[in-house]
Structure formats: structure tokens, C-alpha cells
């Protein structure tokens, strides 16, 4: 999977849930969205990317991915 594209998509998702005042709840909503709509190989790819450093992911997107 094109990781640059996945990072951009994850950041867009996080930008929507950034309005959530509770950061933990926001991260969980990001994670929940990824679970419900991202196919496993996409989730695997972004998880590995975070394990390798995750540069370019927004903080909220990163916290969401870490919950997968």
C-alpha cells in the first residue's frame, strides 16, 4: 500500500475528529473509523509505519493508529 497516501488519509480522518474535546475519545474515534472502514492490509501498513517512526502523521492520527 502507498504509505504516503495512507498517512494523508489518516491525517484527514484525524482532522475531522480533532473537534472532539476529549483527546482520548478523539483517538478512539480515529481508531474506530480505521477498524470499520480500512481493510486489514491498510491497517497493517499504517501500524507498521507508526512502529517505524510514523513521521508525517498528526498527533491525533498517530494516537488513533496506536490503538489498533
Amino acid at each position, binding site marked *: *500500500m*502507498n504509505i504516503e*497516501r495512507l498517512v*494523508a*488519509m489518516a491525517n*484527514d*480522518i484525524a*482532522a*475531522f475528529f*480533532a*473537534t*472532539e474535546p476529549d483527546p482520548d475519545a478523539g483517538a478512539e474515534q480515529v481508531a474506530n*473509523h480505521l*477498524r*470499520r*472502514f*480500512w*481493510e*486489514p*492490509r*491498510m491497517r497493517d501498513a499504517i501500524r507498521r509505519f507508526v512502529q517505524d517512526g510514523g513521521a508525517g502523521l498528526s498527533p491525533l492520527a498517530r494516537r488513533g493508529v496506536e490503538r489498533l
Partner: protein
Amino acid sequence: MYSIDHNDLGTPAAASIEPVTLEIDDSPVTVPAGTSIMRAAALAGRRIPKLCATDTLRAFGSCRLCLVEIEGGRGFPASCTTEVAGGMKVRTDSARLQQLRRGVVELYVSDHPLDCAGCPAEGHCELQDAAANLGIESSRYSNGGATQRGFAKDASNPYFVFDSDLCIVCSRCVRACDEVQGTLALTIEGRGFGSRVSASQHQPFLESECVSCGACVEACPTAALMEKSQIALGAPARAVTTTCGYCGVGCSLKAEVKDATVVRMVPNRSGTANKGHACVKGRFAFGYATHADRVRRPMIRERITDPWREVSWDEAIGHTAAEFRRIQRMHGPDAVGGITSSRCTNEETFLVQKLVRAALGTNNVDTCARVCHSPTGYGLKHTLGESAGTQAFTSVMKADVIVVIGANPTDGHPVFASQLKRRLRQGAKLIVIDPRMIDLVRTPHIEAAAHLQLRPGTNVAVINALAHVVVTEGLANDAYAEARCEQDSYRNWKAFIADARHSPEATEATTGVPAALLRAAARIYAAGPNSAIYYGLGVTEHSQGTTMVMGIANLAMATGNLGREGVGVSPLRGQNNVQGSCDMGSFPHEFSGYRHVSDSATRGLFEAAWNVNLASEPGLRIPNMFEAALDGSFRGLYIQGEDFVQSDPNTNHVIAALSAMECVVVQDLFLIETARYAHVFLPGSSFLEKDGTFTNAERRISRVRKVMEPIAGLADWEVTMRLAQALGHPMHYAHPSEIMDEIARLTPTFRGVSYEKLDRLGSIQWPCNDAAPDGTPTMHVGSFVRGKGKFYLTEYVATSERSTSRFPLLLTTGRVLYQYNVGTQTRRTANLAWQAEDRLEIHPDDAESRGIVDGDWVGVTSRTGDTVLRAIVSRRMRPGVVYTTFHFPESGVNVVTTENSDWATNCPEYKVTAVEVVKVEQPEAWQVRIRAERSTGFSPAMPSA
């Protein structure tokens, strides 16, 4: 000439339900108050002769043929313009009436001699019938038609002829253009014997303002306006009621057939979606179904550079199954997938997703709604509880304020637009939110109260600003929102939206919409009292498409504009079965009825019914499939009725992905652009060649009925069934009705749907179940489907696609009336007479600074690619914004669009692409080649890239 099996009642139905009883020819008749005597008599089986009346038009009272006698009344009133009254005693026939009618008809035939032999309307001409019934064979006043005859026929329109010699100047055509279509393109010019029907300023029809809807042709009582197809083929012998295969209005049509040939298409006057109207595509552009380009035999090839080889159905199906199984053995079950089509029936889309989930064992199924209305499904499901529009089309007739956002109904949904315009002519206010000045902004007898001409990509800022005004000026309906919605979410949203950053003044610099105009629009919407929002792809095809849908739902909930007629949130679906394909479980994360695949209870239902274990993880969406193809983990794809290469963004990226795959199977009517990259081609069947159902934008399920046999021998559902059999998962359906029965068993919102009920009721709006056995025209009455409505916080996030010094213009895309989607069908019809190429609209300021004039070739370059189009210099767009359509493959519009997509659904951001436009001398070589192929016959062995 109206449909050959139509029982014309002379005048429209009355709005009242109050019964009135009268006597007609000594028999008691009870009809609603306000009904004309003519209609009451027709309902009672008494035919009163008429020429200027038909039941789609208001009574006119000009022909004087429908005179009747009313006991105690004076004279002989026209039955079309005289309403019934309680106790009235009417006589429809007498010696005196016969004498009067003979005089009238003799005057008509004095200028329209009864030389009916050879007339294309013979047997269906209302003047001929009237004369015959009165025993008239000639006229005492005849001059042989000297004053009417000798005018040249106007055959400029590709679909119909106007023969003034045969015209009786009844004005039905003029009134149809006014009342039914709302274009007002026709008039009667001159007086007395010099009266003539005239299109616009005495122009040929093709060059006039006429939009070729055909309402005038249908209204004509003689052969003065007649379809060329009927003139060529003769009168049809039978009519089959079916549903249009074009846009999401889903018009009910009657296919009139002679032998096995469709002679003409006539809108069904009982059709609930279209009320007896149609557009140029639905009524006339059906010739593609029998076009010489139709592929009639399955074909396979080893490599996409090889020539195609025609094979039997068995070989093609067997080859496909073997290839898919080979790929799955080598790369796993998730290395393959399928695509359902919004151009196919509910039953066919259900079968394709069943094949993918049950026979291939993966959830890698998606549908072309991914690239259009997937944000609608997500946004409305989360806020209101159901992934569908809230209203019936007729609801618009009770709207006081109509907001059209990112839609162009007169081009994209013309039959609904006619109804909408009718309501606007009655006085409803119109607000248009669109970067382009669409026709609705200013059209005969209609002018928008506000046109918010926003910059592309700023929808969410605009909807937030509208909501800000509503909340901060105290215009919200707090009682409604607090009772009907989650109170916490409403309170949070109000605090969020009241922040000054959302004010019209703060957002003006971003959106380009003057704050005062936006405030005025918000006040109009909030004042209602019935305010309705209709929206299109200008809402969904953005990086914040889902956010915008949620913002629209927020605004409607906050003002109490949901849950009754005249209000609501209504997505206008682009293709005929977008709603249906979504309903049928075409998305990779959902079963039919929008139930997530991770829900074990739902999954268990399907596992029990299909006798397989089903995957619980979401599958790949279309853009994800392309990415997976490029990384080698996705290698086989079954595509039913979708042309990715032309319709999806970043064409070169799509081509690269398809080229990387091992088995691409295209099932379609024609060798579409995507077929250039296919290994198997399975001939598809048009809507005329199969049974099934379509579900339109108002959730209306309507029957599609087979008019002719499938040209390639199999309907699409039969092809999918054969493929399932070859994959070792046999499906046993003798008829699509049995597929619908299975859908009903497995889908709560379809529980009460059956072909028997559809035949009985005509159509059904889902949900249709025990709680609503006849369907649900208006949703969310009393409470929302999700219980309490939920407000979402819709922060505006600017798209990353921005104009720069290198790409200073923003390109946005749309549609035209005469072409449909990627043009596969309409490019193979005479609709080319109106539009034979995509053009780039550019503002005069932008054109002048680049030295561009009308008709110039212009190069359009973005960060993904470049193409060449012809320019139209137009003030429809604001400076800095250019616009085009995507109907022609040689235009390559999607070569320049990007892979940006909606955050929630991956719906592409077609509506915002930063580009530069420069004058060039000629189109690109690949464009010339594709255009040449299109005009001289396709060369399938040659990929374009």
C-alpha cells in the same frame, strides 16, 4: 400522441379529497371536488370528445368540442373548464351537442383535410377519431387546407419532426412546454388562419431554446409533432411499463414496441416519480441499446496487448473462474474482488456482492457510488440514522424555500427540475449554492433569491456560516432540536457553531461569498416555514464531502426541517440505481440494509442463508483496490457496468493499477475504456433486456421489465449466476423476483417488498415492512431512524488542493443535459447533435489574460497530468475557476483530477483541482487517436497509454 395504452381523462386530478356526487347521463358519479366534468365523465366511462385537453395540462377551453348540457344551466359549457357540483345533472350527448360538435370539427378539418392514409398518426389521431365518431368525412367549409398547407417541415431536431401542415393550433404543445417542462420555448405566433406554432424566435427546433424533452410531441393530438422513429417504423403495437436507465429520478416509462423493436419511449402518466414527464435522454436516447458497437460475444485474451478472441459463454466463464481461483491459491482469498454497478438492477448488484462475499470469500466488493454519493450514506446514517434521502419528489410542491447545493437539476435531473421549477413559479423562494451560475439561478419566471457563488472547496465554511447565522440570530427551532435530537450533541454544536470564526464576515475571505448575502440566505432558509435542501455531487465530491453532508443535516435539524412533507434533505443521485446499489450491500464494509460486516448477528443471517462462512473484516474500496494492485496484493477484479478509466480520478494511476493485474473482467454493453485493460469481456444487457428493479433518489423501488431479449443471450444476473456456479457456489434463481424475495428475507428495510406488491402498487419507497407495508414516502416522521438525531461538529478544513503560482486556477466538473455520465450510452445516440465534445468554461478575465477566445484549444495541466479541450469563454464561473464535463473519453478530464478524497469514504475530490490553462494549437496525439477510434470503430487491441 400519448401512450397507446393511456386512458386519457382530459384534465388533471383535483387536489381535494372531498367527495362530490353528480349525475352524468342519468348515472350517479362521485369524484373529488374540483374535478372537471370531462374528467368525471371519463372516470365513469363516458368519453366526451376533445382536442385541446389532455390530463397532464390545465384545462384550456379553446376547441369547443367538449361542450355538454347541464340541467338548469344556460348554453353549452365546455366540460374541461367546468367543475362538478353536488347534484349537478350533466348530459354528454344529444342531437344538439352532436350538431355543435360537427360544426366544430368541420371547421378544424377545413384546414386539416382528412387525407389520413399514410399519416404516421393514423389510428392514434384525436382529430381523426373525433371526425369518425361524428361521421364527418369532409367539410362544408373546406378550402383544401390552403391556408395551413405548404410550410416546410422542421426536421432539425434529431428525434422529432414538426409538420405545420398537420397542426390544428390547439396549443397543447405550447402548454406542455410551459406547464410540464417549464422551458417556455414554444409560442403561437400570428393570428387567425396565420397562427403557427413557433419555437423561440421562429427558429428551427434544434436551434431554439427547446430542450427536446418531448412533452410537446406527446401532447400533440395529430401528427404535427411526431417522433421520427414512429414515422420510420410505423405505429407500435404494445407498451411495456419499465423504468428509465439514466439518472436517479427513475422515471416510469412505457416502451412502445413493434415486433421486437422499440419504436418510442413515452413517460408513464401514472409514474409517481415523474408524473408523466421525461427528458431528452429517457424519452429519446435509447438507440444505444441496439447500436452496432454492442458486443455480442464473450471474449478473452492472455495479455492486454493481445487482440481479443471471441469464445463461448462457457469458455469465458470457465476461464474467469479458473483465473480467479488460481490467483487466490497463489496470493490469498483477498487478492480478488468485484464491482457492482449503479446502472444495473438491485437484483444484479445483490448477486455480484453475494458472489464476492460467498463464492470468492472476501469483502472486496465496492460500487461506483464510491466515487459519487458515498459521503451521503455515511453522513446521513450518522446524523439521522439512515443512508438515504428523506423525502419523496412530490414533497417539493409543499416547500416554501428550496435550497439547491452543488447540483444542477435542469441538466442532471431534468424531470425533477421541471417539478421544482413549477413550485418556484408558484412562489417558493430559491437559494442556489454553487460555484457556477447554473440555469436555475435565472430562468423564465424564476430568479434565485440568493446565489452563493462560493469558491470550490469551501462548502463546509459556507454551511457553517449559514448555521452560525441561524444560531446567533435566534432563528433555530430549539424546541424541535431539543425534543428530537441528542441534547448534549445539540448544545455542543450550538456552542461550536456560534463561535465567531464561523461567522459570514469571518469566512467571506475564504468562501468568496459576501457576508450580507449569506446572512440573507440563512434568514430565508430559517424563516421557511417549509425549507428543503436538495444537493448533488458538488457536496459529496470533496475532501470534506461527508462533513458537508453532516453540516446540511445539522442545519435541517436545528431549524426543524425534517420529518414532514415540504422539508428535508434530499441527495440527487447521479445514476439510476445509485441508491439501490448502496442498499444492496455493495460497500465492502456493509451487508444489504447498511449493516456492518463485523456485526455477528447480521453476518450469521447471511451465513445461514448462503451456507458459507463470511469474512468479518471490511474489504478494499475502489481506490484501495488500485493501491493494492500496484503493490501486488490485488490481482483479479470482476467489474460489472463501471468504466474506471474514464470516470475515476487520476487516469494514469488507474491505468497503472489495472495494467498491473492478472485478470480484469469487464461486463458491459460496449468495449469501454476500462476494457482496454481487461483480460475477459462479458457482454452485458441494457435495461431493455432484463427484469429487475431500480431504486431512485427518493428510495422508490420500481420495476424494470424486459422489452426485448438480451442481445448477447444472457441478462447480467444470469452471467453472475453462471460465474458463481463455475466458482463452486451455485445460485438457483429462475427469475429476478426470486432474488428480490431473498433480499426481502435478509434486509429489514425491504422486508415487505415483492414483485407482486410492486406490480400492485406501481412502486414502493423503502422502508417497506410490517410497520410500513406500503412503503415510506417521508422518513423520520415523529422520530429519527437512529432514535435521536445527532449533531456533529463540522470544522472547516481547507483542502490540500489549492491554487498556486504554478496552478493558479481551480477546475471543477459537472454534467450537461444531453450526455450521461461517461457517455457510453448517450455518445451512441443522436444526442451528439447538441454536445459532441467536452469544453472548458473559462471566465473572460482569465481568458483574456491568456489570450484565449471562444473555440480555442487550451491545454489544462495539473500536478497529475495534462489534457487539451476547447474553450468556452463564459461568465457562469467566477474569475479563477474553470469548469468542464467528463462525458467524452478523448477529453481525458480525469487525467488531471487528483487522488485526493473524502476523509470518511474515499470519495474522490473531483470538484477541486488546481490547474493552469494555456492556449495550444491542437489536442494531444492520444486524444486524436481516441477520437478517431470512436468515430471509426473501436480498436480494442491498442491500449491508450
